[in-house]
């Protein structure tokens, strides 16, 4: 299965890219993807809990199981307005 992971704001700076395709096993949740990111980027290591998660442009629980083709984004605290 493949999902597209989008990076915004501080997460884009840390990842050094806007987006990437991830190959995931069936049953993988947004929280699982966050744990992978924490292990890949030392700046995220201290963040045990993911920020808000969005799947296919809507807020979703981090425990949502991802489906093939989903678009996932982690939403750091927002600061619009």
């Amino acid at each position: 299965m493949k999902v597209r992971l989008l990076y915004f704001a501080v997460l884009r700076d840390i990842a050094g890219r806007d987006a990437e395709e991830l190959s995931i096993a069936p049953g993988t949740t947004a929280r699982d993807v966050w744990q992978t990111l924490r292990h890949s980027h030392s700046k995220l290591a201290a963040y045990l809990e993911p920020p808000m998660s969005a799947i296919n442009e809507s807020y979703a629980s981090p425990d949502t199981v991802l489906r093939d083709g989903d678009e996932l984004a982690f939403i750091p605290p927002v600061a619009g307005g």
Partner: protein
Amino acid sequence: MTYLTDSPIDAQDLVRTVMRRSDGAYVLFEGVVRDHHEGKAVESIFYDCYRTMAEKEIDAIVKDVSREQPDVAIAVVHRLGHLVVGESSIAIVCASPHRAEAFAACRAIIDRIKKTVPIWKKERGPGGEEWVGWQC
């Protein structure tokens, strides 16, 4: 309707798009880049955004507030990209036959936008640049 722009905001133009002959008042809110944040000097702000989701989130807020205040006509535009001190990052116009509903709607919209719409800002000043909220 698009709620996002990369260009300077013309608030009076937004007012003209909203006002009806039955309106006796409009409330215009503009958020403006200020020269400081938490004791640090700010020269400019870069606004980043998850555009497709932000459009949906703002639209949902506008529709919710329209249901709560059915007499109010609403327009919202948020600017993205690089803004300097004094420039407007957001304009909200709420027009209504009477002022109370326009004030209430405008307040509700900006408060909800600040809570849920996926927009972020990176402040730049003499000391460097920093994302607001989560620096990591």
